[in-house]
């Protein structure tokens, strides 16, 4: 058969598309269960990490609760999962599966988003953990922030899809995330969030009430993305936080 005639070319292309397409489709459906499970575990690990439940050994390590234990630990530390929808607050044990990105899209279209809050209990203290989602330099960034009822940050976890290795990707390093602990998101009565600031003259992060943490060198846009992600999210939860503070 002549390899160069048009019929052969078209047949070859169609066959190739069918073969490759079926392989990929089969693989995607065969593996989707495991992939979903991995993603679920990851969310639980991240939420627990933000409230300080992790297996960090030294100053540099970021170690999550291993996947085989995470489900159990998650249900023992997280006492309540709430969904805020407008004025309505409901309990929902699957709240951690809510895709915050989709909810923010709803908000953009003027609809009421479902905002999850995870209430955790550790060493007699209550933590309120909220998910965050925003934009870095190249792609999405997201994370979780654990607060106490006075709006002091107890811990954060950040992650990203494609920030530059060595620069923006360092938002998920310990030395960056740990700086947030102890900072307050309040400025007087205003929900200011926390600014990733370049010139705050506080590289050791001793000043905890300035709403600022030291920025990463060479990662201005990722840092700005983190700042705006925090302030956007915090303002979404403003009413809920206000009710927590008034409860005393």
């Amino acid at each position, binding site marked *: 058969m002549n*390899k160069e005639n048009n019929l052969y070319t078209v047949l070859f292309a169609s066959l190739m598309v069918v073969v490759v397409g079926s392989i990929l489709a089969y693989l995607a459906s065969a593996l989707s269960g495991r*992939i979903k499970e*991995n993603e679920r575990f990851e969310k639980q690990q991240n939420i627990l990490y933000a409230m300080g439940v992790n297996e960090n050994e030294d100053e*540099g390590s970021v170690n999550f609760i291993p996947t085989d234990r995470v489900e159990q630990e998650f249900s023992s530390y997280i006492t309540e999962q709430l969904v805020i929808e407008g004025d309505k607050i409901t309990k929902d044990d699957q709240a951690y599966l809510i895709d915050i990105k989709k909810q923010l899209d709803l908000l953009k279209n003027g609809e009421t988003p479902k905002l999850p809050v995870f209430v955790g209990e550790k060493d007699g203290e209550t933590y309120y953990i909220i998910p965050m989602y925003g934009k870095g330099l190249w792609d999405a960034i997201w994370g979780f922030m654990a607060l106490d009822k006075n709006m002091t940050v107890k811990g954060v976890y950040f992650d990203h899809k494609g920030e530059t290795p060595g620069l923006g990707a360092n938002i998920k390093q310990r030395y960056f995330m740990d700086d947030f602990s102890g900072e307050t998101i309040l400025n007087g009565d205003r929900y200011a969030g926390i600014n990733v600031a370049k010139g705050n003259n506080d590289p050791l992060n001793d000043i905890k009430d300035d709403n600022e943490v030291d920025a990463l060198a*060479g990662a201005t846009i990722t840092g700005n993305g983190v700042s705006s992600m925090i302030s956007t999210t915090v303002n979404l939860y403003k009413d809920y936080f206000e009710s927590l503070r008034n409860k005393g």
Partner: protein
Amino acid sequence: MALLSKKDANLILDPLADNNPITIQVLGICSALAITAELKASIVMALSVVFVLGLGNVVISMMRNIIPSKIRIIVQLVVVAALVIIVDQVLKAFAYELSKTLAVFVGLIITNCIIMGRFEAFALGNGVWRSFLDGIGNAAGYGLILIIVGFFRELLGSGTLLGFQVLGDPIAKTGLYSIGYENNGFMLLSPMALIVVGLLIWVQRSRNKDLIEEN
């Protein structure tokens, strides 16, 4: 080498030095600039490319007699893309952590010109075993440069290697930092990757004058 004939061994050894895809053929520069700010990322990228190029060359070489030449570039693209997606999906299911590290590279692997270059220049015209060796060799040559560049950029830019602070702690001023050494943040930006690659090209050509092109 008993395992490989001399000709076959050269398929692997040549691209490591005198026919290196980056420093001699100047292919695959884009990913070499993009991801070499950290040694770990360089190593992961190097291994991914070894895998994809080795396997891709085999697939293309097996199909070389039935691919219509009019659409061969598209066929090559489909093969790389499918391979990369398969690897990505399998890792997501069985090695989730690793797949997250790799996520950044998936797009970069598909567009890596070394891969298309080897398919086009070698696998389409050679047998399966030789194509496999050629793929491994070229990917290793590419990976070698990546790792060298990554080593210097991370060491001089962040003072770390694979995340370990080998030069002391820059904030607490220990080790080298106690005598006034500072990290050069410029090393982390892409222009310095280009300059480091340039220096490698210079070193290689000054050691082996045969490699210098005549104008």
